[in-house]
């Protein structure tokens, strides 16, 4: 059972020594309760307190770090079943798989490493390359892994083979320093795999077939017994329903039953014969608890969809995405196009932009910095007032882009029109509708009239 900040505070030294980086023990305790910092930061915590707090504060799903260097990514440490309960924290790594004997291996590796796309001010990239052993000699696999590393330096890897010797060869060939994820230890090979993982200090996937959680629990015990602690689970289900059931059960076991043996992130092999089917699988995996998602298709449209979805699902519901405050061009606006202003809450922006875009009305859309709040909330909090509107207009250069001086403000802040007029005396302030859906009609019937 999670402790409240106050309960944690009672267990701390209460000296306000500040060595943890927080000004007071209470502030530190509150942050601990949110699982936003670690108890180790407190040098003076008593052993009794540590025992009590550790039990309450250890993350129910262990963090696994895949790769080394700038592109390394961590997965796990999730604390909720549904994102609305708090937030999902570590977004799943998207990994593209190639066969070790593929002729275009280096080419694919380079493309995966180089793929990137911009969305709401963020650069979204793929996270890794999985090299799947095509069978054959260990040396051949090691060579393929080396080729991939050469083609995509620094890109995290997933080494996929049932043959521990092949994995060992690849790691020994230099890959070990990059801490790739090893896929996978099974009931058949776990001793050898565990040994390789331990030897090279790399995270290890343990894999069963058909969502066999009993098998997974057993394997977890065996592998940890052999000294490997950094695990990732592959329940090995083959249908969407099976994957969903296994992923849900594992998350519940970790969060609600405190099942430490199964408190590890998951890998989902979403690969399917067509990219459409693969997209469905991967979409499910993003929402339903995967830590690493392995894909077979390097199809940009699919990758762009998945990166966008991942960004959506892993947005903290308490901290909505903010749009960059600036002048946006919707369609190809001209000197005669309308000028609208709204706030930089992403959903507000999308609603307004979506309506004018959908209606095919080229528009200048000014986005004011309201700290990511919607129009009404921003207005109530003083983050979207006449001054802010005027500042946004003046700073945007819009007066040089249009031949008219008509500014449409959202209907919800009709009460500001007089003040905005005073701030922007050369502009005619028009009060638009309250709901975005009415904007096209407003532009057609009121704006132009």
């Amino acid at each position, binding site marked *: 059972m999670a402790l409240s900040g106050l309960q944690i505070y*009672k267990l701390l030294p209460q000296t*306000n020594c500040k060595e943890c980086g927080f000004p*007071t023990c209470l*502030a530190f305790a509150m942050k601990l309760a949110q699982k936003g910092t670690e108890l180790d930061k407190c040098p003076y915590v008593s052993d009794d307190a540590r025992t009590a707090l550790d039990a309450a504060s250890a993350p129910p799903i262990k963090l696994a770090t895949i790769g080394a260097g700038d592109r390394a990514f961590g997965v796990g440490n999730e604390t909720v079943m549904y994102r609305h309960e708090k937030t999902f924290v570590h977004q799943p790594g998207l990994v593209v798989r190639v066969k070790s004997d593929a002729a275009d291996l280096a080419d694919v590796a380079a493309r995966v490493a180089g793929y990137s796309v911009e969305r709401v001010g963020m650069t979204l990239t793929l996270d890794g390359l999985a090299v799947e052993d095509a069978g054959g000699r260990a040396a051949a696999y090691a060579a393929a892994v080396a080729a991939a590393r050469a083609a995509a330096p620094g890109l995290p890897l997933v080494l996929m083979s049932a043959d521990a010797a092949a994995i060992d060869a690849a790691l020994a060939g230099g890959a070990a320093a990059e801490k790739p994820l090893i896929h996978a230890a099974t009931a058949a090979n776990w001793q050898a795999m565990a040994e390789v993982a331990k030897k090279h200090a790399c995270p290890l996937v343990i894999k069963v077939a058909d969502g066999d959680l009993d098998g997974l629990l057993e394997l977890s015990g065996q592998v940890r017994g052999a000294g490997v602690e950094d695990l990732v689970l592959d329940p090995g289900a083959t249908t969407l329903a099976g994957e969903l059931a296994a992923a849900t059960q594992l998350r519940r076991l970790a969060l609600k039953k405190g099942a430490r043996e199964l408190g590890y992130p998951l890998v989902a092999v979403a690969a399917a014969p067509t990219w459409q089917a693969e997209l469905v699988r991967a979409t499910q995996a993003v929402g339903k608890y995967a830590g690493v998602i392995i894909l077979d298709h390097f199809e940009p449209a699919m990758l762009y969809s998945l990166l966008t979805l991942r960004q959506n699902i892993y947005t903290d519901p308490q901290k909505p995405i903010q749009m960059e405050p600036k002048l946006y061009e919707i369609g190809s606006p001209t000197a005669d196009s309308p000028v609208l202003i709204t706030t930089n809450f992403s959903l507000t922006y999308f609603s307004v932009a979506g309506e004018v875009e959908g209606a095919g009305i080229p528009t200048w859309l000014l986005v004011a910095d309201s700290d990511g709040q919607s129009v009404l909330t921003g207005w*109530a909090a003083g983050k979207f007032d006449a001054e802010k509107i005027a500042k946004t207009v003046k700073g945007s250069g819009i007066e040089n882009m249009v031949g008219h001086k008509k500014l449409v403000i959202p*209907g919800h802040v*009709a*009460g500001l029109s*007089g003040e*905005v007029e005073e701030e922007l005396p050369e502009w005619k302030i028009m009060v638009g509708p309250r709901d975005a859906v009415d904007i096209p009609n407003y532009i057609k019937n009121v704006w132009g009239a």
Partner: protein
Amino acid sequence: MSRYIATRAIRGAQGMVREAEEAVNAALVELGPDAPVAFTNTAYYLPVIYAFTGEKVEKLGDLPAIIERAKNLLHPVPSNNMWLPYLGETLDSGIATLFAEEAMEGARFARGTEPQVIKLDHARADGARFTGGDLGVHGDKMKLNGPIDDIQLRAWGIQLVDGRMPGFCAIVGCAKSNEVAVKIVRELQSRGILIFLSGNVNGRSIIHQLQEEGIQLGYDTFTVPFGIDTISAVYALGFAARSALTFGGMDAGNARKIMLYNKYRVFAFVLALGEVDDLKYATAAGAISFGFPTIADTRIPQILPTGVTTYEHVVSMPFDEIPGADDMERTEKLIQRCMEVRGVKVKIAKVPIPVSYGSAFEGERIRKDIMYAEFGGKRSNAFEFLRMKPADEVEDGKITVSGTDIDGMEEGGALPLGMVVDVSGRKMQTDFEPILERQFHYFINGVEGIQHNGQRDIAWTRISKSTFGKGFRLEHFGKVIHARIHEVFGNIVDKVQVHLTTDQAEVDELIEVARVAYAERNERIANLTDESVDTFYSCLLCQSFAPNHVCVINPERVGLCGAYNWLDCKASYEINPTGPNQPVAKGLVIDAEKGEFSGPNEYIYQNSNQAVERVTLYSIMEAPLTSCGCFEAIMVLVPEANGFMIVSREDPSMTPCGMTFSTLAGTAGGGMQTPGMMGMGKYYLTSKKFISADGGMKRIVWLSSNLRESMRPALQEVCEREGMPDLLDKIADETVATTVEDLLPFLEEKGHPALTMDPLF
């Protein structure tokens, strides 16, 4: 229940059943049992009988069983020395009457004597068809409509159900004069009310009257002539019964549900014109079962207590005794009373003023150079005052103006202005007065070219030259207030009248009356305690972003956003019963000191997605209310000082607890219950229940300076109430301490009481 009415209704029912039985028997002899019985174009057989009993009458042979049912509902006439409630007997008689009337009409249809053909005094020249079906006037003969067919039922039924048509009126009898008959119909039509005509007095029916005056009757004019006898009034109830079957999804035979459906959804009433005979009483009793009251324009005993109908059952308004200059004015009042008795709501589609109206004009500024005139402000006094009055003292829509109007003013001039708004409503409460009054600002600001500021006796209104030029005058303020109160507060207000005055003497006189009321209101709110009520209110508005957040608002605590107090929530619930503010029964007291009650606990558990199990309203140490994100200030424990500190939203500084407002908000916000921390509305500070279990104001060791300064007088009062007049200056703020290390010496130096109070934990 009046014994007189019971007697008349029971006697009327007995007569009607007897008459129907004879008519049915005669028809059976003449036409045989297999002769078909069917109303015009309907799939609902004889609809009242079908709806109440599920019996499908299709031929004459089916009718005797119905007569038997009616007989079983008959009761003996009460004896002179027996005084009982009689209600059940009267209602039974009403139903028996409706069955008998419908059976009678069925027999007439079998014979082909329905719909009725009446003879007119004057032949109409056109002879054209003027109403639905094959009805019409031919020479001096006029064929009446009879029952409404199913197609028309659907068209009107939808409008009755979706509210576009406010209700229907079944008129039975004959008006005082043709002129009054026409006026009645016009008054009802202007409100969009559907009119059914039937009955007569001494052979003369309102149908004759309207026909003589050339009034168009029929589906197109929403004025349908059923028949010139009282029996045909049963078609109105057949229409109502079919509405319930069609639009209420009711099954035939489920009498109770059908009656309730009509009571709550079909705003119908009976208007009895002229003498009320036994059969009319009996038929009216049938209508009462549907929840339809009767208003009579003659002197008859009234049945005022509500029960079967929503308001009064039978209301008597002897026509000649209605106050009014002439019959026309008396008619207006009669119809207005009908609206009230049935609870028909006024709808005003558009605010009737010469300039545009809408929220887009709310923010307009009327600068000096474009101003025509102003009221209030520096140059004159002005006030706004809304008060509740008994229904008979308010005439809806009446707007009076005294003193100089705007067109009597010079450009740029100023005059005093008093606006007194009287409202009445069955669900209106004195407590709602300030809530309605506060909206005047928004109502008036919606007018193009008007700027309104302030409220109560600091109201200040400016009108632009252009708006004046378009014809805006003082009475239009009244029209705006009248229309908008009906629109926004229609659920609680029935009637609104407005008086405006620019007469200095009158303004000065009335402003004092208003000030007494303002003071009383302040007093009343100050005296409202948690103990004096048994219901708190919830607010779930913030669940859109804080899914588990539930505000419980008690009289002694304002919502944490500061925007809603207990009275606001109460009014909000009356206005919008399915809205975000719901009543929360206080339930059992679990801990009076900490403010834990069974009702709020249960409500919070159910409405927080079962995430929060209990709440202590007067303590933040154990189970404080959850915090959403829009609190005006946040309170947090300072363990070192054995007290609490409060940071306002406007204060960006670091604070002694080591967290700024935004860090604190991030910790406690989002619908979490965080012991030791809680969002709050700033006026909660002045409440006697302000963390009373934790020690109240004496526990406050630090307070953002902007809060202290802006609320100083109110806070000083609290300190005095707590017996520590100098407490306020013992409390630190960001100018003296932003760390706990600076805070403690300050408190020591000042001798802050929290340091020596019982340990908080």
